[in-house]
């Protein structure tokens, strides 16, 4: 609670967290089927209607309601983003922590493996995975998770290495504390702050990548609604129906902005330099 209060006191944290909260709410409504119209049903009579009271964000070429599709699309994006980042966080943290703790040979082997993954530009690695498995939301989750795992491993390993050399870890060893105790209480507990920041920023990036893959036609497959796909479908219609481009574009941007702003705020709040140290 104190943590949320601090987040809401931070100017960009307030905006970012509000956006995330709204997106979660919208996604929940979509998941419960509480959309203004049926997102999949086509109304050929109402093709390419500009925004109106009936269709707040207009309709597409097949007469489907943009707002309803947007709501489902946001849900879809969030599921992929949260799923992939969760996997990457766990895998990356375990790898980075163990590499730092075991050191020498293990460190070298694990981190070189991570380097191999990092040698591929993110989207290209995702494309390679999609080429093998075939497109779809699960592939997106896997691809983004694999792309982000080495980044988390690096993010964890650096601080874990410096924590390992801290005097409180030495002190723990002089008492004979077990490795499990030291790894969880002394290392992991102190890594939560940097991890939280990184998770938030990773969510922004995952949102971006999911939309990008869908935009390329390699993520969510039609007719399921997805922000990237909607944007891609709008390309040939932009002269006649700019709203088809505008709303999904804004939705993607705002979502990414929400996570980026929150990540920034968290970085400020959780920065050890900012925390009171009686000197």
């Amino acid at each position, binding site marked *: 609670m104190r943590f949320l209060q601090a987040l809401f006191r931070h100017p*960009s944290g307030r905006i970012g967290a509000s956006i995330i909260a709204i997106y979660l709410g919208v996604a929940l409504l979509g998941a419960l089927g509480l959309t203004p119209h049926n997102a999949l049903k086509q109304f050929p009579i109402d093709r390419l209607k500009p925004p109106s009271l009936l269709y707040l964000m207009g309709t597409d070429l097949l007469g489907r309601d943009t707002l309803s599709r947007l709501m489902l699309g946001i849900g879809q994006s969030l599921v992929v983003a949260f799923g992939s980042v969760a996997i990457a966080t766990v895998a990356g943290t375990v790898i980075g922590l163990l590499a730092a703790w075991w050191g020498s040979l293990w460190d070298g082997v694990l981190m*070189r*493996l991570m*380097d*191999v*993954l990092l*040698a*591929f*530009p*993110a*989207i*290209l*690695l995702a*494309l*390679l*995975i*999609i*080429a*093998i498995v075939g497109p779809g939301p699960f592939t997106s989750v896997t691809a983004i998770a694999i792309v982000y795992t080495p980044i988390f491993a690096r993010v964890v390993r650096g601080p874990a290495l410096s924590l390992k050399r801290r005097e409180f870890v030495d002190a723990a060893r002089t008492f004979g504390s077990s490795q499990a105790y030291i790894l969880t209480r002394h290392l992991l507990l102190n890594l939560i702050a940097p991890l939280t920041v990184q998770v938030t920023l990773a969510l*922004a990036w995952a949102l*971006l990548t999911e*939309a*990008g893959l869908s*935009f*390329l*036609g*390699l993520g969510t497959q039609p007719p399921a609604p997805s922000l*990237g796909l909607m*944007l*891609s479908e*709008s*390309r040939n219609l*932009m*002269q006649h129906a*700019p709203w088809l*481009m505008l709303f999904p*574009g804004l939705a*993607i*941007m705002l979502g*990414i*902005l929400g996570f*980026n*702003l929150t990540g*920034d705020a968290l970085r400020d709040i959780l920065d050890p330099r900012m925390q009171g140290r009686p000197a």
Partner: protein
Amino acid sequence: MNYVAQRLLTFPLILLGVSVLVFVSIRLIPGDAITAMLGTEAGLLTSEQRAVLARYFGIDQPIWSQYLTWFGGLFQGDLGISVTFGRPVLSVILDHFPLTLELALLSMLIALSAGVPLGVLAATRNERTSDLVVRVLAMLGQSTPSFVLGLLIIYFLSVVFGVVPTMGTFTPLTVDPLASLGQLVFPAITLGFAFAASVTRISRSAMLDVLGDDYIRTARSKGASARSVVWTHALPNALIPVVTLSGVEFGYLLGGAVIVEQIFALPGLGRLVLNAITQRDYALVQGSVLFVAFNFLVVNLLVDLIYVALDPRIRLGKR
């Protein structure tokens, strides 16, 4: 020297890992290797033809021997044959690469020349209006996906100004430099925009950190002017993280080129990979991914060397 030696030693190791990964990943494709190589046409083959092909491609050999043959081929530039083009993969890639490289370099140039001065400006005017404006812009820039920005640019160019950007063809730099650059300006802005935003943010925070360092106080105590403090004392130190970022970011640019080339219909390497995936031209996918990863690694090695040149603490050992 130690650091450089270490980088040079791990470089081939990682390259080896990359090649294994790419090789294995193609083997993971459901169905047998001939299908993987020939795509849908494989369905028309008789079993005798398959056996002949298997021997021809060496697929009847154990996997490690196949890998060694394939790996050996890499050194002769043999990345296999593209089914869709009916030509060696390498020559197809080299046809499409110049565009992507030019695009990536141009966006990097745009990003650095906009981001570094803006970041420095914001840092020296910390907490004032101009700093705030730069920070808000950078935040928005970082949150704008290239495909949204690209579509917006096309929309404004075509619908509002009635200008249709050239699409589908590309004038190489060597043929007509001005036309070539002109053609790539908007795609490069699209691609480099988010990067410029990150450069701005990193330069700003690095600059702020450095301006609080003890040696800046020393410089001031000598009577150095504000300009000299910022440009000769602080900037070389603040550039170190920017250089690191640029190396990583170059990979994103090469990857991001996939999307931008798709939006602006540019016949570059990114679009080539995309088409290869949809057309199941696996040799071409494999070759292109390997090619890009190789370039990315080389660039990162170069960036490391620049990094070393900038920071004497690494250059002369003792961390």
